[in-house]
């Protein structure tokens, strides 16, 4: 992992559709070198997948997303890992993190309707062993996602020439 690898990661995180040849020009490398480096980063599971950031509210798809906080009793020898592994298997769970603070696990869950999300939490998550408490927060509006500012206004007019 060197400076060039970090630059490639940054460029791909921002736009995963850049071709190896475009990346080569940007990073002052050869196309072949870029291909090898990306393959190595994929192999090392540093690059996990290539995805798209979508503003679902704009897509008016009618979906619902929620952040679920869980208080969990950790397990001897395994801590939170085994229960996290079970939770992660649900298709509805988009992201899952162990955090510090008043609760332990944070889930990002999506569903078609609010009832869907509520049912998923009450039927699958809450009854699990070791889950002490759940709190569900329905997401009302996303302002920024993965570095993308959804509500950014057009920048102010720039002069065509200066001075």
């Amino acid at each position, binding site marked *: 992992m060197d400076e060039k690898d970090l*630059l490639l990661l*940054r*460029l791909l995180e921002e736009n995963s559709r850049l071709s190896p040849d*475009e990346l080569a*020009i*940007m*990073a*002052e490398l050869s196309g072949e070198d870029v291909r090898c480096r990306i393959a190595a980063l994929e192999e090392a599971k540093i690059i996990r997948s290539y995805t798209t950031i979508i503003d679902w509210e704009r897509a008016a798809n009618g979906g619902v997303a929620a952040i679920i906080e869980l208080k969990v009793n950790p397990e001897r020898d395994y801590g939170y890992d085994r229960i996290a592994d079970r939770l992660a298997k649900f298709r509805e769970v988009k992201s899952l993190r162990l955090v510090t603070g008043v609760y332990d696990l944070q889930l990002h869950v999506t569903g078609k309707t609010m009832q869907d999300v509520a049912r998923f939490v009450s039927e699958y998550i809450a009854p699990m062993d070791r889950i002490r408490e759940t709190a569900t927060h329905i997401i009302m509006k996303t302002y920024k996602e993965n570095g993308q500012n959804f509500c950014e206004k057009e*920048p102010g007019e*720039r*002069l*065509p*020439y*200066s*001075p």
Partner: protein
Amino acid sequence: MRDFVSRRAKVIPPSGIRKFFDLALTMEEVISLGVGEPDFSTPWNLCEASIYSIEQGGTSYTPNRGIQPLRDAISRWLSGHYGIDYNPDTEMVVTTGVSEGLDIAIRAVTDPGDELIVAEPSYVSYAPCVTLAGGTPIPVECLEKDHFKLRADRLMEAVSPKTKAVIINFPNNPTGAVMRQEDLKAVADVVIDHDLLLISDEVYSELTYTGTHASAAAIEGLRERTILLNGFSKAYAMTGWRIGYLCAPKEICDAALKIHQYVMLCAPAMGQVAALEGLRRGEEEKNKMVQEYRVRRNLFVEGLNRIGLPCHLPEGAFYAFPSVEKTGMPDLEFAECLLKEEHVAVVPGSVLGQGGKNHIRCAYAVSRADLAEAVKRMAHFIASNSC
């Protein structure tokens, strides 16, 4: 009625791109590579610091030299980054952009009849500022074959008994040229041998893509005969805030400060707060922007060379300076027709001095998508105008 306009004001030429400016304003969907400013907004923590200071009532005059914490921070920063030490209390003035710093620097040292050598191609202000101060600007060309660096032998040819100072700007607007330590040493020999002063505008210093910037004041024997100008506009995307600084030995700095006191009083208070935040906690944001400029430079210069506009790889600033000689069009015509036909705004090199002839200045401080589109339109322009 008498003609009230002074001879000095009459003699300075109007900006060579004024007519392009007016033309561009009448057009739709112009991609402008004509602006020498970052397309990024000022990093938000800098704005926050400034907004907070306004909320706290920080809207008064500041000390003439600028607020103490900012001068202290600049002094530490110059020492840490470029290895030059300036006393923040006696050898530094915070100015209203580098533009003011340049003006007061020139006025502080110029007497009628003095000649000031200006390395060209250059930013448009240097020669007019010299004229307004009563001096005579003497151009010295930096040539493409020298990668637009200032060569000591060419400088020597321009020196006369009347020469007082040499004005340089590296990394350079418009060529992107960078002077390395050894290049500066050669210039230093001429400056010292002829007992000259060096005015070094280093506003693009942080936009040096390979290696680190060599500051003129850090060259042996130059500190005592250099006025160093730098600022926050380019590195921190702060053009509208108007914050620069001037560093010089005490006697020269005192003279510049006197002029600053009378004509400017102080640099904008809220801008000084933002600049301080930039030095304290803006390094990471700045580095990200610099990395992005470098990526854009690589894409854009590759594009220019691919479509038949030869361009050396600029090592600093955010300008590409390709030659348009092969197209058979003079640069002024090229720029005007490109704007009219393809709505791409560039600056013809000849308005930036003789050395800029047959070149165009393209600022690549615009989005990658706009750069790609600009290259496409330029290719179309060249294809439809070739015989």
